[in-house]
């Protein structure tokens, strides 16, 4: 059963930018592409909380803000608890008649370090309490703002500056933390994955996340030009391949029911995704096959279809 769509094509997206020009993200930044769309989906009636990270740094050097909406950076590990306070305050101040009663979307937009690692506890607490807010994780799969260090979201085998490739150890030896599944196990009403290569899918999910009652979570894969060791022009191409290889499946979980939103009838081999990125350049065929086997297994359990 497909849900009603808020946006059918790109033409339905507002032209107005709420994450505006003049931000200092790297040339070709996948995160910036995602945030532009995320803000178009949310609209101006919101309060955005961002933890420390690339997004905070590139969008807020005084006096140049890239935000057309109210925006608050507090610290690295607590976007979800700050959002809890914002939501609670809006609720009580509207109830007491201090603020006019209207829906103001409370949205945390965070990186993977601020979500799956240091901000994990605050997020879990806020989800359990059931605050009416949307949490959007921009996953570039490492601590990019500090210079490409491994996070819990860094994939198996990837080189980072703290998962070096040497004779004894070859990149990250652990698998990526499955954050959407962990979030979904809180039993919240809406969880989704998205990526900027599929902008219409992304904006519909973000819109659903902010419209739904209660907490919602969207996990967005956002390629990083310097961190993934890719040329600046292929961030979208790489994001698309992450989906087409089954490495990053696009789905949503509404009231516990998972639906694939982008079907991949002929899954490509993971090497098509891996070979474009310098962070995987050291991988042997054997290591690539190990990744392929795991992706096959996960794709099968999601019903993503066989490899081409």
């Amino acid at each position, binding site marked *: 059963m497909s849900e009603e769509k808020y946006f059918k094509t790109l033409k339905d997206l507002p032209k107005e930018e709420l994450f505006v020009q003049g931000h200092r993200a790297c040339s070709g930044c996948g995160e910036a592409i995602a945030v532009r769309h995320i803000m178009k989906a949310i609209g101006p009636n919101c309060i955005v909380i961002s933890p420390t990270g690339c997004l905070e740094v590139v969008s807020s*050097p005084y006096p140049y803000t890239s*935000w057309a909406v109210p925006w608050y*950076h*507090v610290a690295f590990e607590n976007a979800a608890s700050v959002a*809890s306070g914002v939501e609670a*305050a809006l609720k009580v*101040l509207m*109830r007491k008649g201090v603020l006019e009663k209207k829906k103001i979307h409370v949205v945390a937009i965070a990186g993977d370090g601020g979500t799956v690692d240091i901000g994990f506890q605050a997020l879990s*607490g806020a989800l359990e*309490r059931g605050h009416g807010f949307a949490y959007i994780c921009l996953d570039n799969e490492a601590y990019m703002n500090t210079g490409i260090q491994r996070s819990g979201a860094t994939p198996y085998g990837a080189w980072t500056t703290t998962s070096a490739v040497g004779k004894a150890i070859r990149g990250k030896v652990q698998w990526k933390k499955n954050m959407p599944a962990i979030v979904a196990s809180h039993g919240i009403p809406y969880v989704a994955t998205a990526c900027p290569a599929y902008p219409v899918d992304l904006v519909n999910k973000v819109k659903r996340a902010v419209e739904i009652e209660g907490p919602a979570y969207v996990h967005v894969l956002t390629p990083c030009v310097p961190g993934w060791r890719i040329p600046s022009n292929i961030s979208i191409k790489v994001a698309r391949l992450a989906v087409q290889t089954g490495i990053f499946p696009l789905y949503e979980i509404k009231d516990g029911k998972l639906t694939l939103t982008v079907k991949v009838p002929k899954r490509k081999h993971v090497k098509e995704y891996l070979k474009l990125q310098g962070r995987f350049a050291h991988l042997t065929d054997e290591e690539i096959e190990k990744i392929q086997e795991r992706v096959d297994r996960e794709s099968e359990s999601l019903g993503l279809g066989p490899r081409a």
Partner: protein
Amino acid sequence: MAKRIALECSHAISLAVKLANVDVIAAYPITPQTHIVERLSEYVADGELDAEYINVESEHSAMSACIGASAVGARCFTATAGQGLALMHEMLFIAAGNRLPIVMAVANRCLSPNLSIWGDQSDMMASKDCGWIQMYGENAQEVFDLTLQAFRIAEDERVLLPVAVNFDGFYVTHVIESLTVLEQEEVNRFLPPRRKAKYTLHPDNPTTWGPIGLPDIQTELKYQLEKAIQNSKKVIKEVWREYGEISGRYYDVFEPYRLEDAEVAILMMGGHCGTARIAVDRLREKGLKVGLIKLRLFRPFPFEELVEATKHLKALAVVDKAFSPGGFGGPIFSEVRSAFYDLDVKPRIVGFIAGLGGRDIRVDEFMGLAEKVLRGEKIEKNYVFLQVRE
């Protein structure tokens, strides 16, 4: 009409918070603070207080939630102690730096290790430089009054800083005492039901909060905070005067006891001042000219007032329930020594570190330390740990 009731000191704070008509409470349990938020939970559950009660998953999130709510314009309260305060350490600086008028009660507790639920003042002293206004209360009446005043001071447009109301774990928190409380109408006259704020997070006027602090603005930002907290002393005194007119209870930066003709004074903060007063009385009975200064305001520190009130003394015996390992005695001792540095003629200032981890400071111990100072006994480095078994 003023109403006299009996309350546990923790519950006196809860009552003040209810009368302050707070909007958001962030609650996380930690001994010896928990009674405050338990009573607030009852108020909210009974519909006596219309507030959002957020059961946060840590003290770090308690302060974070207050920061978020306060930025929207809500009146916020939380309470903590010891390890909880240490866990929110990072957020304390942000609450102050972002100029959010949050009020917090701190049931002062010893910091680990070893895990100790008992009182001393090492928790707040480890966070003394966080930019908060810091006050210390001794009894139910005082903590009730200080809590109400804290909201008014914090939200004053000339201040806009968070306020911590400190009171000693167990020695004060769990004691039932009688106190006179204000009626709701009196509180409403003293504390406007709504706070005003120039900027709040709201889509009608989009503002960017917490921009990255490039070196071009960071010095000016920090200096703003320094000016704000230094200037807050004037407002604090003004609020205390006004509160005195309403309640008949007048407060000041410290409270002297038998000081006028004293040669030596004990100086300290918090609940042990009650014991120290008895020691002073007994010493007076022996004909020794000893007085007490109960320090109430630690930040901003009342340097000038203190010097003015004590420069006639032969000696000051400063009792700290905290110390700075590898530093120069206790934190109050350090401040008091600095206050007098530029004076040509000044009292001898001696530091005593006592009452750590909930160890009681007895009347005879207070008498002993005062007599030691009166006799002019030499104390190496001018400060000493009391109560240590050799």
